[in-house]
């Protein structure tokens, strides 16, 4: 067990303990206010308008694999999908989820099915609500674009592991006149989304979606733990740079 392994172990355990502690402590205290992210507020309005207009909402989960770190933004997307499905239940057109990976398509179907079942509208569910539109990035984008144009989509939520092909999807949503909220863990996708999407989420803003859309003590606790460890990393980088300058070798 080398130093990196030890440091990694400590880091992860500390993070877990901090989340648990802040989550338990946060139940007894009022929720802490975070900085305003206008994208999530506009998302709420867009959902409401889509429900009123009877149009459809689209959630895309990307093409990240389920066995790596690329699943994390897809998990955030699944949480948003559940929230949107609950909000848009009364809409004439239920939301639809697309993905570029088979496991994500199965997960999206399972999320929608459980949401409808919990609301008591299991009969309204259809497997078509969660689709695999392509196994390669551009085929995935090519399969998603017609659904945006023909499915009367007025709002698209793109949260997952994307590449530069997300620009095609965002551009299609933009040309359709709908609102686009997009975020990815991929830097290339973030750069592309900054130019093409209405509401891009840069950096870790994507991972704060849970705390802003369906806040509970655990979501808030994990967000606060992120803030704490961010400062820890900043300190560690500065200290390491200073030590490096002073001639210490790590």
């Amino acid at each position: 067990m080398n130093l990196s392994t030890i440091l990694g172990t400590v880091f992860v355990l500390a993070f877990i303990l901090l989340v648990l502690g802040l989550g338990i402590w946060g139940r007894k205290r009022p929720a802490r206010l975070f900085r305003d992210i206008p994208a999530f507020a506009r998302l709420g309005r867009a959902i409401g308008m889509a429900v009123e207009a009877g149009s459809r909402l689209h959630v895309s989960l990307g093409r990240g694999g389920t066995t790596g770190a690329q699943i994390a933004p897809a998990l955030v997307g699944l949480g948003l999908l559940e929230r949107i499905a609950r909000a848009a239940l009364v809409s004439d057109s239920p939301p639809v989820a697309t993905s570029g990976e088979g496991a994500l398509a199965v997960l999206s179907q399972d999320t929608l099915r459980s949401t409808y079942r919990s609301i008591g509208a299991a009969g309204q569910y259809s497997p078509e609500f969660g689709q695999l539109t392509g196994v390669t990035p551009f085929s995935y984008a090519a399969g998603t674009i017609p659904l945006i144009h023909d499915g009367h989509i007025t709002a698209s939520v793109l949260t997952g592991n994307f590449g530069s092909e997300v620009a095609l999807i965002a551009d299609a949503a933009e040309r359709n006149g709908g609102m686009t909220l997009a975020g990815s863990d991929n830097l290339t996708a973030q750069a592309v989304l900054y130019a093409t999407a209405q509401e891009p989420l840069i950096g870790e803003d994507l991972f704060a979606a849970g705390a802003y859309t369906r806040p509970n003590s655990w979501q808030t606790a994990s967000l606060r733990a992120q803030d704490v460890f961010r400062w820890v990393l900043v300190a560690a980088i500065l200290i390491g740079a200073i030590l490096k300058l002073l001639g210490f070798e790590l």
Partner: protein
Amino acid sequence: MMRGKTLISAIIVIVLGFVVLAGYFWPLPVLVSLRDLLLKWAVLLAAVALLVGVVNLFTVHWGKASSGAKGSIYSIVLIFSLVITLIIALYFGPLSTWSLWIYNYIQVPVETSLMAVLAVILVVAVVRMARQRPNLFSVVFIATGVLMLLGSAPLMGIEIPGLYGPEGLRSLLAQIPAVAGARGILLGVALGVIATGVRVLIGSDRPYGG
């Protein structure tokens, strides 16, 4: 009943997640073997999920083609292509001449064409951004992009001094500010990934239908 299923699912996820995590940090033989076993199961499940996804894709487009909805012709083409490719690849092999011919002369050109369209879309997006979001960040974004483009290659045979070349501004921007910003964003993303994983491990987030 549903609550019981949810509880069982949550227990499985939590336990196995901690086992795999521990197997990464504590190279104990038991943990390592369990980790490998679970990862192999995950890989198998992912491959099966791919097949399920393909079946779902076929089902959706079959329904579209059957209903005659708008765009059903494209669903028919997709279904036809899927079936043909599947038959040829299963019969002749994935590296057979016919399979490679389909891949080399249909799939690759289509996707490279989409890439070319992406280039046009990105240029249009940059121009539109100047109109829709006329702020400082947009100006910096456009200026940086233009500088990087200017230093990437000689413009019609003209090498712009100070921008092009290994010691040019373009290399400098790519090696220092871009890397620094990328590092910062990646660190934040990493923290977010860790937080999401922790929420799954403690059972707060249950994306498995519970």
